[in-house]
């Protein structure tokens, strides 16, 4: 078994009103920024999964992303692989 670390990035679906994104846009003039538009604000969760393979871990992450971390009616998500700690690597660090 190995540890695999992922990030799940959740964003409001295109076309869904994003009041937080709009609030950020409204603040831009105060920063004298005029070149920025289409701000969308979402959330990011990072998590470690213990599994036999990256593919197996990804299935778990995908289920959580769909059921808990996002609401498919209003949000989309992307899974980002961050790092995998294989058992071989762990074996190189005895006593840790």
């Amino acid at each position, binding site marked *: 078994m190995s540890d695999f670390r992922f990030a799940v990035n959740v964003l409001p679906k295109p076309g869904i009103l994003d009041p937080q994104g709009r609030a950020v846009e409204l603040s831009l003039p105060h920063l004298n920024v005029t070149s920025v538009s289409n701000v969308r604000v979402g959330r990011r969760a990072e998590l470690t999964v213990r599994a036999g393979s990256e593919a197996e871990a990804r299935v778990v992450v995908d289920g959580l992303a769909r059921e*808990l971390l996002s609401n498919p009616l209003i949000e989309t998500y992307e899974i980002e692989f961050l790092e995998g700690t294989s058992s071989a690597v762990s074996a190189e660090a005895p006593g840790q």
Partner: protein
Amino acid sequence: MRVGVVTFPGSNSDVDALNALAVAGVEPVTLWHESPDLGAVSAVILPGGFAYGDYIRAGVIARFSPVMRGVTEFAAAGGHVLGICNGFQVLAESGLVPGALLRNRSLRFACRIVAIKPERLDSPFTRAANGAPIHIPIAHGEGCYYADEATLDELERDGQVLFCYVRDDGTPAFDPDEPANPNGSLRAIAGVCNAAGNVAGLMPHPERMSERILGTDDGMQLIRSLVESANEWEAAGRPAPEATKNAAANARGGQ
């Protein structure tokens, strides 16, 4: 007759709901979130508050609590379930009623009295209403009702829109930015029910206007409706809900 009120960690309107039920003349019972066993209740209220801190999205963590297994079974068996405010958010996240509650368009927590109007008086949740605008409070940050256009059309067509926010003249506040629409809800929707008609949610708080001493008892129209429906359901021997074509479409996958 006993009517249950679920207490999640973070519920804060459960006591008001218990009191409103007592005013309506039934025995109110607290249902603890850790038990899927509802006991011998004839209807269930999911109350307002901030269940599990509203983390991730309001209602989503509550959706996976043990009591919701019992509530889902109770609803599938035809029992009446009313979700108020946070309770509505829990029902929407659970897929027991259609749609989602987004952050208020203003980004502000909205806490004031609003006017809503029942769209129909023949539903289990409005049968004791007199049809006039009902003045009851809202207190929420995520109450902006959303569903895609096709779903909104379907809800209106099938009579699943139970309550709309209304202007002083009693017409629906369809413009999401007008003051009578407190959160930007699409089609002025303040409350909906499932396709079978036995599960409903609304953002305003009827239980907080349950006695004259609180200003009005306008909210009792909805509490009494629920109690009448539960009585009738028990008297009829707990009939199963009518199968409808939309029932399957309303349930979110993976449950």
